[in-house]
């Protein structure tokens, strides 16, 4: 798509043609859709959660549909950071847009190690620290609920990594704003939210949880009002930019997050339903700017506060 200057931004050092990001875990390493769809329809792509060691992931079933949403329990299946650096990172330039790597670890030190290994790699524009995955102990929410733990973890990663650092927040913290402030204090450049919320579906015929992992993370439109509220609260509490996500399917949904204070938005589940989402949201935002005579989308950031 022809870049529209009214949508361009620099997200704490990452130059993007639009405030639209493919959400982690929902777009692979960016190559899976590329046979059909230009990854550069996005302003940036966040790749699958990456850990120090390879992980096989959770037993199936890993997904189940719920009303206007889905649960997933992938379990951070990934080939590990060394494989990533050897086989994937060198190809990321092909995508034609900045790539952010989502990282997770079993301990603060593992996070630091992964971040250190990814520091100043050409293909990687920034990191997103996942401290909010409801499906694994690794990368898990256990790290994301307590402001003190978050501050310590983010500080360590910050020492090891010199690019743009994004911290991904969970709603399951007692106070998401306290965690947000802790991440900001520790040197995060950007906050992203929300990750999925832990849920469960029971198969009443088998009288067992549907998912192999028992529980999984809720994503999709079902979540959207809760995510908009969380972005609104966090954007009001911090001064660094916020990337909003949770159930975005179209330009109007994206605008809700921007008006609530998000500098950019990420789209996950909607890709599964509509692989043309990036392109359609981009066009929809342009139309909104046209109709409302807005010179640059950033005028809308937080305008509903």
């Amino acid at each position, binding site marked *: 798509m022809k870049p529209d200057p009214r949508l361009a931004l620099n997200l704490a050092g990452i130059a993007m043609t639009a405030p639209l990001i493919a959400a982690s*875990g*929902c*777009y*692979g390493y960016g190559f*899976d*859709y590329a*046979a*059909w*769809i*230009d990854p550069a329809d996005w302003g940036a792509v966040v790749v*699958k959660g990456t850990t120090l060691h390879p992980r*096989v*992931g959770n*037993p*199936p*079933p*890993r*997904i*189940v*549909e719920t*009303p*206007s*949403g*889905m649960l*997933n329990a*992938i379990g951070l*299946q990934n080939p590990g950071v060394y494989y990533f650096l050897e086989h994937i990172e060198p190809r990321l330039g092909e995508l034609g847009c900045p790539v952010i790597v989502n990282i997770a670890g079993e301990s603060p030190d593992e996070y630091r190690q992964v971040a250190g290994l990814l520091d100043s790699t050409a293909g990687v524009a920034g990191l997103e620290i996942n401290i909010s995955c409801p499906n694994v102990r690794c990368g898990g929410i256990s790290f994301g609920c307590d402001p003190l733990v978050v501050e310590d973890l983010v500080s360590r990663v910050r020492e090891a990594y010199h690019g743009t650092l994004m911290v991904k927040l969970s709603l399951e913290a007692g106070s998401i704003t306290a965690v947000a402030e802790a991440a900001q204090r520790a040197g995060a450049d950007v906050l992203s939210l929300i990750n999925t919320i832990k849920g469960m579906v029971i198969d009443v015929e088998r009288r067992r949880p549907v998912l192999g992992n028992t529980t999984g993370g809720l994503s*999709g*439109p*079902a979540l959207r009002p809760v995510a908009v509220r969380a972005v609104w609260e966090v954007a009001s509490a911090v001064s660094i930019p916020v990337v909003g996500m949770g159930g975005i*399917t179209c330009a109007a949904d994206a605008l809700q997050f921007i008006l609530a204070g998000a500098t950019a938005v990420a789209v996950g*589940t909607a*890709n*599964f*339903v509509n*692989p*043309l989402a990036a392109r359609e949201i981009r066009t929809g935002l342009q139309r909104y700017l046209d109709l409302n005579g807005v010179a640059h989308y950033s005028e809308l950031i937080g305008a509903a506060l």
Partner: protein
Amino acid sequence: MQTKPALIHYCELIENTRVTAQWHCLRLRAPKLAVASPGQFVHLRVGSHTDPLLRRPISIHHADESSGEIRLLVRPAGAGTEFLVRSKPGTVFDVMGPLGNGFPHLNENRRTLLVGGGIGMAPLYFLAGQRRQADLPFELLIGAASAAELPPHDYFCRCGFLPLVATEDGSRGVKGTAIDLLEQRLRTGGEAVRLYACGPPAMLSRVVDLGRSYGLPTHISLEAHLACAVGACLGCSFPFKKNGQIEYRRVCRDGPVFAGEEVYFET
């Protein structure tokens, strides 16, 4: 930017025919999808709201490049498949595809057995038609609970072949399961070279066992709940055993057809 092939196709439903007590055959105008090969599938939106949310995968049951049409065989199982079988001609579906690897189409001029359990016959019917056209020998074996759950004879005749049928209640063909039928054909039908199968996991697991006993390679089409259907979300992973280690492969992209010997069926 080079132009890329389209992933989404808007396909008009031309005809919707009930072919068993429950199953419907949907004929779609889909020139771009008619190039698909047997074992590939499409991924369809089933409504325009957020519930049901995800697309539903359906095997390509038949594809005809010359007419630009494809057919789907659908068994209503829940909201999504019910949306499909209730749709009226003229409806335009939002269809992703063709997806998946498909059955290896080998030009071996030797007898292969195609085993379909229930709705699992859908892609094998397509493969059978292809072998029929190429004049390659095959037998299509189909199992169902009863005659009412199978399409009538002429459903197959027009493609120039007839399946061998097993029903659990004996109301049509052999009394027994698709596996009983397969065992019979392996014992008595002369030398076979290869097995293709699609159906419930328990059946597939038995097909693989039989393949092992007879020293025949098996190509089985697996099912899983799909989200993205292109390999991006890792939601459809199925366990495989490699060097004694479990590893997960993606049904949607690495499959849905796999070498049966490598699949790890939990027991």
